[in-house]
């Protein structure tokens, strides 16, 4: 038997259950996170229009650059203010 040392980050991913899906978005606060890729705002503008139509309250957020993870403060702000978040990923 050989014993070797684990080269990984030894991340034990805790099971995190999904929240129950909301029956309606009416009255809920929905965060729209623009990751700063070109034309992400076009997509999110359209989403904001549609979400507002169904009674959601929309808050807009933007990462400083798509190349880096969202700053922890931004993540905290979204988690604090929103019940739902939608992220625009692509060009």
């Amino acid at each position, binding site marked *: 038997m050989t*014993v*070797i*040392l*684990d*080269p*990984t*980050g030894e991340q*034990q*991913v805790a099971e995190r259950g999904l929240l129950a899906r909301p029956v309606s978005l009416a009255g809920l606060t929905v965060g729209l996170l623009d990751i700063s890729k070109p034309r992400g705002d076009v997509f999110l503008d359209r989403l904001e229009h549609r979400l507002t139509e169904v009674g959601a309250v929309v808050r807009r957020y933007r990462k400083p650059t798509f*190349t880096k993870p969202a700053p922890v403060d931004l993540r905290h702000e979204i988690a604090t203010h929103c019940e739902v978040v939608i992220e625009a990923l692509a060009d």
Partner: protein
Amino acid sequence: MRNGRANGTKTARACKRQVTEVIDARYGAAMVSGGPSESATAPALPDGLVIVVKQDCATCRLVEPVLGRLAAGDEPLTVYTQDDPGFPASVAAVHDADLAVSWHHDIETVPTVLRIVDGAEVDRTVGWSQAEWRRITGIDDLGADLPVMRPGCGSLSVDPDRADDLRVRFTGSRLRARRVEIAALEDEMEALFARGWTDGLPVVPPTEARVLAMLEGTTRDPQELVAVVPPDLIPCTVEKVAINAVMAGCRPEHLPVVLAAVAAACTDEFNIHGVLATTMPVGPVLIVNGPIRRRIGMNSAGNVLGQGNRANLAIGRALQLVIRNVGGGRPQGVDRAAHGNPGKLSFCFAEDEEGSPWTPLSVARGFEPGQDTVTLFPGEGPRCIVDQLSRDPESLAGSMALGVRGMHHPKLVLGFDAVLVMGPEHARVFAEAGWDRERVVAEIVARTVTPGSELARGAGGIAEGVPASLADRSLPKVRDGGLLLVHAGGGAGLFSAIIGGWANGAVGSQPVTVPITS
């Protein structure tokens, strides 16, 4: 025999995973909890004279009568014997069977004489020296019938066949990484592939013995934090870097370069997260400066960007394995490269400072001459610049400029930095004309300046290009400071190489140079 394995009769079925016990279902690997449990603390030595000997040493046998005389004296004497518990016959010895006393008290030679006062060593001599033994014992006629001097023998605790095992036994508890058992019939190489811990090539199994030996390459504590590694943002210790360095094929003397590179890669400026996640074909390129290049045998000459040099390849590979294994960054995972490039296995080389007509890259980037540094650049694969006819610097600078302009897309400018690896035969043309580093870079960049009308979107019938608002300006290919010049390559060949970069500036990645410390 470390990591030895009999595999001559294995069948494919027998190779099937025979991992034992304690399966962590989510992790999918076999774990054994804890590490070696033997004490990492030194056994206390009694006050008085302490002498360590072994029977299999002519000098120890020579001094046997001396030991008898010392035992008969007033001073407390303790003799430790490493091999034969019956030796020496002249005095009752303590058998250092597990070599704990010898290991922890750094006995490298037998005989070794120690003087212990209040539990602390205050004096030591090794081998047989009549004068030294008389001085340390205070007995003026000690060993009068012996030769004046005889060298000692190697202590069993530093025997190359035992040292690795002893290091594991006595210092393995310093290591915190999870232990993973691989069954005797399991192929170690295949086991590492199966867990997803390799970059597509076999890795060296990171046994405790190898990792502890690797850690001898640095003075830093194994649990010291080196960086928080993206994309999973995992705190990474010296130990974790050492484990991956073992896997990459590093030697202990390579470790300080790897540690510096990991720290540099994980800075906000270099932004390894973005370099990893981009769809462009870039990865970290490591350029090493300073005396350490020679000390660890790095290549800066022929085939400098190619295969064949262990230090170059293993150091670059170790960084990539840290990103993969510790950070969790994997191709088609967070690594979104559309094509990648072969240099993402390893891309590390040294500057040819000795043959260079110019100051080293590290000095150009603000470090003192003689300081060991590693510069990280987010680079694609190298591309050759051919010019076998230019013998004046203006002509050659023009060729270099054309090579630089071709990077990524001739109509895209200022958004990407580049490394120009200039071969010695090209460099000589500039040096003979008296051009220094700054002038070479300035003259090349000046020759990349192109009218915006040729670069604008749609110009030449090509949609790609700079915004139309820049059409009335003339623009250089690279931003100020965006062309890094490095002197390296074989002595024959009128060629250089250009390494294209990635999105530069705060939005992307900045080249980062850091000092290498022990």
